């Protein structure tokens, strides 16, 4: 059996080697083009479009969390904090919530007559990323001396504190009769994204929303890919694999860890701001601990540390949560004579998926190359191969850019 698999793997490697150099780019281009034209195959206000938009936004969060948990190995159980901060950035700077102020920057003609702070969505997106990056550093600071499970607990505590502040923000005055948040009432009537020349987005036509979040996803994906192969990305992986060894090789611990937190947080904030405007309100009830686990489940089911895994995991769980369970399978239990709906137990389903995934395929759907090598016995095989090869033929493969340094 293993001989057969080995031959199969060799064939595959040979086939990949025969592919022309432009193949990867062509594949990526085709996928992006497919992503762009996808909405034309579905009605502009369909449930499937809605599910797709949310799934893509989840994928953005999943890619962000993957940097913290997957690359840097810092188990963050409070990622919902950045969802909350991103969404509140939108609530604060893109609605009439701060009703005493009158600030308008590049917003639609309608919004520019309203009271409150109204900034263009792109500015809010940048602001949300900046706020979350700062918050990520703040959350990272107390965890610097800690490892493993203790980091998980501190981040969890931060996430819960932000949730509590969001719920009780109604009673926190910020001056002029205005409060910090609107608690469970929610900040409603937030601005829809507006771009000069395109106009305001409307929930009757979901296509522009889709393209917007797709653009954010592509940006985040690009940054992720570049970071992974950068000096910083390698430093994260080194810290994850062996902190003591990495530090003694001269990797700055504090800077590297804090950057992981803040980059991951910034992406979460961007997705949070998008969710704020897409759901048309910012409600404190959205920011529960379960959400952190939900995003973590995406990263893990995809494959810790794997960018494509995080993407696929985010899209898969996003579709399951927002299309499959509520729209397709919801009344399944009642067909078996049980009196509950599947949406009630969705977190139970995710819990079950997590357990099954860990027991059967701990490396995830699309594991990172390094982890796959660790988990299969390939390293041993390669070592044996190297030992057998004549001394002159052994080639040392360095990652690009490292040989010269």
């Amino acid at each position, binding site marked *: 059996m293993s001989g057969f698999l080995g031959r199969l793997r060799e064939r595959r490697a040979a086939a990949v080697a025969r592919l022309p150099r432009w193949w990867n780019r062509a594949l990526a281009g085709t996928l992006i083009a497919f992503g762009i034209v996808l909405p034309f195959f579905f009605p502009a206000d369909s449930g499937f479009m809605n599910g797709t938009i949310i799934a893509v936004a989840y994928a953005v969060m999943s890619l962000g969390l993957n940097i913290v948990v997957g690359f840097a190995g810092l188990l963050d159980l409070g990622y919902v904090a950045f969802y909350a901060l991103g969404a509140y950035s939108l609530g604060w700077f893109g609605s009439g919530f701060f009703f005493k102020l009158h600030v308008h920057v590049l917003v639609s003609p309608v919004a520019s007559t309203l009271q409150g702070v109204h900034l263009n969505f792109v500015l809010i997106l940048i602001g949300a990323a900046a706020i979350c990056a700062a918050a990520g550093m703040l959350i990272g600071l*107390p965890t610097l*001396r800690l490892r493993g*499970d203790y980091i998980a607990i501190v981040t969890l505590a931060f996430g819960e504190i932000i949730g509590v502040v969001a719920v009780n923000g109604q009673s926190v005055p910020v001056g002029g009769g205005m409060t910090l948040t609107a608690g469970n009432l929610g900040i409603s009537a937030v601005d829809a994204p507006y771009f000069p020349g395109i106009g305001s987005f409307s929930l009757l036509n979901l296509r522009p929303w889709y393209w917007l979040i797709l653009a954010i996803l592509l940006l985040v994906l690009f940054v992720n890919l570049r970071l992974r192969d950068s000096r910083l990305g390698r430093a994260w992986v080194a810290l994850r694999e062996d902190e003591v060894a990495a530090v003694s090789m001269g990797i700055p611990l504090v800077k590297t860890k804090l950057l992981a937190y803040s980059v991951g947080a910034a992406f979460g904030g961007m997705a949070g701001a998008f969710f704020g405007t897409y759901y048309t309100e910012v409600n404190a009830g959205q920011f529960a601990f379960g959400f952190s686990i939900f995003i973590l489940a995406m990263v893990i089911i995809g494959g810790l540390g794997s960018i494509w895994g995080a993407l696929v995991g985010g899209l898969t769980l996003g579709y399951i949560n927002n299309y499959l369970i509520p729209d397709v399978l919801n009344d399944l239990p009642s067909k078996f004579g049980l009196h509950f709906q599947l949406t009630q137990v969705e977190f139970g389903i995710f819990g079950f*998926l997590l357990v099954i995934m*860990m027991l059967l395929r701990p490396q995830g759907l699309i594991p990172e190359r390094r982890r796959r090598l660790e988990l299969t016995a390939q390293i041993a095989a390669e070592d044996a191969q190297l030992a057998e090869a004549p001394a002159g033929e052994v080639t040392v493969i360095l990652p690009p850019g490292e040989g010269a340094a």
Partner: protein
Amino acid sequence: METTTISPTLPTVPVRPLAAVRQHVGQWGLIAALAALPVYYGIHDLVFGYQAGYVAGHQVIHHDLSNLGYNFAQGLSNGAIWALIAIGYTLVYGIIELINFAHGDVFMIGSFTAVGLWGVLGLSPGINPAWLVGGLLLTLIITMIVTGSLNVLIERVAYRPLRSAPKLAALITAVGFSFILQNVGLLWRGGTPQSVPDLIGVQQTVFTIAGVPIQRGYILVFAVMIPLVFALSWFINSTRAGRAMRATAQDPEAARLMGINVNATISLTFLLGGMLAGAAGLVYALYETNVWYFQGFKAGLIAFTAAVMGGIGNVRGAVLGGLIIGVIQALSDARLGPQWTEAVVFGYLIVIMTLRPRGLLGEETREAG
């Protein structure tokens, strides 16, 4: 209670002067942080007084510490429940270094089982006291068996297969099981808090010490908690199985070489933790007179905070931490408002982690140095 510590200890390394200073700052900083709330409110009560009620339409302002004492009494008895749960966390962490996220939900299942058994046994507030006490004892035993077995089952299914995998894997299955149990609870008793019959009249005052009314509930909680904690520390310190637990906590590999059945010992640890959680579940249902599928999640986080505060892996520490967290909670409930309590407790957790990651009574471990 001399050697209840079961966390792995490291050989002491020579301490550099700066590190020693930092260690003291950590220890005293933590104690100062813990004392801040009670001292502040004590002074506040003495100087400004507190409103003790109305007489003939006028506010009665008292200038004494009995209000603070009332907070403490309530907090300590709440904290005794957290202590029972926290022991489960600390035992499991001590032996396999896993935060058993599902533990809080095992406690919740304990509450639900107990309330279900009351219905089966026909326990209600007005019945013959002898039968009530007997019924409650029976409920306690059955609940402890149920939750203990549940905890062992979870270990067998979700943690044992991952013993050699990275630690993250087991933590994630623990979170997964927590969600599964929560949803079992949700389907069992619905999504809203349900009130259960007040079987023993928890709020009746039995006697008063220095103006602090001692209610039946307080006595109940300690009457269950103290014997259980003593039984547990006797078990860990004085029995063969307890010695096997301590040995496994120190070094599983060496323990196995010495002929200890490590898997059975770990199962035993989960059994003990689960049984204490079940007892806590019954006491919680009696004391709070309501149950909710989400109670386990919150209690779990609070109890874990307590275990960390006391020094994880340390049974005495878990009890101490539970009592302290209970008092912080009661003070925050009464003075700041219950809606902020969660934030206050977690704020304390972060302060502890920053100042003294190993907790009040804990030793240095690999995780938190």
